[in-house]
């Protein structure tokens, strides 16, 4: 189950998974939020995470890019154990992009400056080079004309696409999306999911917490279902949409689809 599934026809890039989560535990006070979660993500794979609110999906993502320290277990990123590298956390995070439910664009910076900030400040890139990257990325997320717009002048869908571009500017090897469309009006969900699906198709390794089953069907290689801090089910996209899921997963799907 927890081995790397590579779909037929896809290039078998590496034998080792890009991300290897081994039995991680996380508690807040006496609440055990993650219970011995294990998960592998292959390079270029897109993994969709579903599960009820409070099941630990966000916490799982936050542990992966070291925003939360784990209590036990290990996380290997590209074969390297990053679990206890608190002092080098910022170096690890440069290689892992994250997109949030509420976009979290910096309101004092224009779209282009939002994208340029990390390359300039964290990598010491020149402003001119960073600006070229910002321009290219804004084109990639289909809003080349918004370089000079400030976040409060953009729609939610546009803001989230700038946020994706901002994460991509660091050339991450892994993207984490935490419910990227749940704060959006329905008519804007599509434009964001399209960008994400395009990135997945280009081979960006991604973990996506979302309940957008259309996206899962379109872009996911595998889908996992979490409940109460445990990964209850891991299924390939085909198996999942073929209907071979266990009882608890099915009950949850019935809830979110109706």
């Amino acid at each position, binding site marked *: 189950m927890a081995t790397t599934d590579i779909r037929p026809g896809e290039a078998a890039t590496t034998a080792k998974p890009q991300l290897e989560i081994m039995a991680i535990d996380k508690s807040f006070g006496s609440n055990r939020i993650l219970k011995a979660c294990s998960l592998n993500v292959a390079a270029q794979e897109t993994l969709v995470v579903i599960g009820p609110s409070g099941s630990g999906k966000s916490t799982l993502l936050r542990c992966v*890019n070291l*925003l939360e320290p784990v209590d036990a277990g290990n996380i290997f990123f590209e074969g390297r154990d990053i679990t206890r590298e608190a002092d080098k*956390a*910022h*170096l690890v*995070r*440069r*290689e*892992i*992009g*994250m997109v*949030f439910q*509420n976009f*979290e*664009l*910096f*309101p*004092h*910076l*224009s779209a282009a400056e939002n994208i340029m*900030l*990390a390359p300039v*400040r*964290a990598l010491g890139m020149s402003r001119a080079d960073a600006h070229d990257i910002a321009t290219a990325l804004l084109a990639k997320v289909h809003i080349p004309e918004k370089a000079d717009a*400030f976040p409060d002048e953009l729609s939610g869908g546009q803001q989230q696409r700038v946020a994706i571009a*901002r*994460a991509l500017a*660091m050339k991450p090897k892994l993207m984490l999306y935490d419910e990227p469309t749940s704060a959006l009006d329905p008519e804007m969900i599509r434009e964001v999911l399209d960008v994400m699906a395009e990135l997945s198709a280009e081979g960006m390794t991604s973990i996506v917490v979302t309940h957008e089953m259309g996206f899962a069907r379109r872009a996911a290689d595998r889908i996992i279902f979490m409940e109460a801090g445990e990964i209850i089910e891991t299924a390939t996209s085909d198996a999942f949409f073929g209907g071979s899921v266990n009882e608890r997963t099915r009950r949850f799907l019935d809830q979110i689809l109706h």
Partner: protein
Amino acid sequence: MSLALVFDYLVSPTFLRGAMMTLLLTVCSLAFGVLIGLVVALLQESRTRTGQAVTLVYLWLFRGTPVLFQIIFIYNVLPSFGIRLSAFVSAVLALSLNEGAYMAEILRSGLQAVKKGQRVAGLALGLTSFQVMRHVVVPQAARIVLPPIGNQMIGMLKLSALVSVIAVEELLLVANQTASATFRYFEALTAAGIYYLAMTTVFMALQMLLERSLDPKKRQRARNVPLAERLLGITRAPAIR
């Protein structure tokens, strides 16, 4: 009543020195006040028990007594504990300790107004905590705290007149001494008043320029405080104690 005399006072070295002293007191006390306020705000944010206790006692002492009392206390009572400070140093010490208590509140509200998600987003990009502070939190907090700090600056200018009580040769004392010696109250006080108004006006202009330079869109915000309101001090965060 002689306007010529008012003019003479305005350009006289004594009044000029008095005004410079007022300016120096204001700038020094404000600078140290911001530093103290920053330390207190960070101590409060740190949530350590000693930090909390120390700041609580400090705020209680300096917000719970009149500034005039603090000035007189530092100048007259500290010497009996062997701490002998010049009138100027006592004045700056009292004014900055008092200012720090108010500044802490302003700075804390500014830092808190920047939501946690903003810091997390900065960290997630691979910035260090310091870079997040410098490039994400501070620029946003600065825009929030600048108007109240401007008010404090103008408040401090006026507050500095209180230190005439310990014989610091600032503007009001100079004017008052001149008037008592010559009985030209109108002329001496008018000259001092003109200096005060000139200085507050310059401060307000600086404040507006700074606010505008911090506005990324370089456009006049609707919430910019009208001049009259600034002058009358009827905006947020009262500088009155």
